[in-house]
């Protein structure tokens, strides 16, 4: 318990530091915000006035505090290109991203763990070799390329799935699989090696000596032990999915946070870019915290430690 709470404090620090980093990065690299909001014919005076009206003329650290204050009050502001409320944008794009990311996250484990277990139980069989080759490919192939390949195969050639769009279950399939692919490949590997490692544990012999079936020994005890490292790295999968979502949402025209962020950066819509970057950072940090919590809960040796 202490460990979980201690981690919470650590997470807060990471959040604060990374919010500062994001804020500076966007401000320093975002280019001239007035270019996005004002017509090219606007005079320099007018631009100055505009900057002052939204606080851009103040020192950057003051801007940061003002900005964080607004965020914490639940008012992140509006887009400077189309005046859309960021809260509203977060709701719609966030929901879409949650659907896609959630589906991908689930796929990582629902597909990855059983395949890994199968490979470990049929070690050196054709099933094992097949699964492991698939896993090597899954880790080697770049995400965007896989996306294009999937679109070409399933949408253009076989015509069984839509190439892009949102948000029917059919439209979800391709982006979710592409987003999950590397995670699945990694999970297969980790599951297989963790299963094999745990099969050599002394306790396996004890369980067999107790007359338990192989199914119980492997499917319950060895798997449960093998899951500890997999659960502990689940948070990294969240981070990975968040990162890849930027590309995958773009390719599949899935209107999630990633897509909104990319669009905003291209348009120099810094309030949107800043806000959604922050959201992504929060997601990644939260993922890591969840992972640690999961690891602690999954491992009785940590759970009860005082």
């Amino acid at each position, binding site marked *: 318990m202490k460990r979980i709470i201690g981690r919470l404090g650590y997470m807060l620090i990471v959040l604060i530091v990374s919010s500062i980093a994001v804020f500076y990065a966007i401000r320093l690299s975002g280019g001239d915000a007035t270019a996005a909001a004002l017509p090219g014919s606007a005079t320099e005076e007018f631009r100055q006035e505009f900057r002052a009206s939204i606080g851009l003329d103040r020192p950057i650290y003051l801007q940061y505090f003002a900005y964080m204050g607004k965020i914490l009050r639940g008012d992140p502001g509006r887009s400077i290109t189309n005046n859309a409320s960021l809260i509203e944008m977060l709701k719609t794009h966030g929901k879409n991203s949650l659907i896609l990311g959630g589906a991908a996250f689930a796929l990582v484990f629902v597909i990855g763990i059983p395949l890994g277990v199968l490979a470990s139980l049929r070690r050196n069989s054709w099933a094992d070799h097949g699964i492991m080759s698939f896993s090597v490919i899954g880790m080697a192939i770049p995400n965007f390329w896989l996306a294009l390949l999937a679109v070409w195969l399933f949408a253009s050639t076989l015509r069984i799935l839509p190439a892009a769009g949102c948000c029917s279950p059919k439209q979800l399939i391709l982006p979710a699989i592409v987003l999950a692919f590397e995670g699945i490949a990694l999970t297969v590997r980790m599951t297989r090696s963790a299963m094999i490692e745990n099969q050599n*544990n*002394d*306790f396996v*012999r*004890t*369980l*067999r*000596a*107790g*007359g*338990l*079936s*192989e199914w*119980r020994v492997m499917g319950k*005890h060895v798997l*449960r*032990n093998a899951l*500890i490292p997999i659960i502990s790295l689940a948070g990294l999968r969240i981070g990975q999915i968040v990162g890849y979502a930027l590309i995958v949402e773009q390719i599949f025209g899935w209107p999630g946070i990633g897509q909104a962020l990319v669009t905003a950066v291209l348009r120099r819509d810094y309030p949107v870019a800043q806000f959604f970057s922050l959201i992504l950072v929060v997601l990644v940090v939260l993922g890591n915290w969840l992972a640690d919590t999961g690891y602690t809960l*999954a*491992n*009785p*040796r940590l759970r*009860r430690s005082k």
Partner: protein
Amino acid sequence: MNQTVHDELVEIRDLRISIHSEGSFFEVVKGVSLSIRANEIVCLVGESGCGKSITALSVMGLLPADVAGVTGGEIFYRGQSLLGLSPREMRRVRSEEIAMIFQDPTTSLDPVFTIGSLLKEVIRAHRDVSRSEAEELAVRALEEAQLPDARKRLRSYPHELSGGMRQRVMIALATALNPAVLIADEPTTALDVTVQAQILESLRTRQKERKMGMLLITHDLAVVAAVADRVAVMYSGEIVEEASVNDLFDNPKHPYTQGLLGAIPDITARRGALHAIPGRVPPPQVTPPGCEFAPRCAHSIESCWEEHPVLLPTSVGKLRCINPQPYST
């Protein structure tokens, strides 16, 4: 097969076990015969690596299948061959008929499940009982293994218990289903010296109460002297001498046994070391034509190097030596 009641619960007959690892293939158990009767403790002693654990595991059908296999001989339980049993039948034998306790209680228990859930799982794998009935059986087994606060301990994880307590859990696990035979492979070696005696006493109490046949593997001669009825001495994959504990300690015939006993100046000393015999166990890959022990034997004669001695009955037991010497201390 005759109709007499089988005096021997377990009978190992001319057992051969080979190891195949990293391209090499060699015998580590070379024709071992040994029996365990009800209500007796048989001690199997010998230096590390001589094949004691492998022999015990083969009785349980638990040889690591990828490296070891039985290549000859038979193992009977109450007259029935164990080697021919299906996996399912063998699972029933394990812990219902023959149970085993291992050396290291730290690694022998699944760390992510509680003691209670482990015991209940094993009990329910063999007995058609409800969860609460299984729990009662688990508590009773723990109490009989003298684990303090047995009921409370059901919810403990292995890491929350001391080494001695874990070994009591192992004893409870092994005896929960009332097996006729208990195999204990160095059950106290990994424990603190202070708890070794207690655990051994617990084991012996359980064995006497239930009239179990027990095979106790150890290299602690003080333990042997304290609990054994019969002793089999193993050297390099073979039994070299077997006798009742008194005969063996009073009048050991095999030079190896004599060496083992000579290695402890006083049998009542807490711990006996077995490694004081000059030389070491030959690697199992190398099989000399004569007696395996000849290279280390002070009394070897020429024929010891030429012909492999057989295990022959003596007035008090069995002996594999063509030039036995009277024992003097």
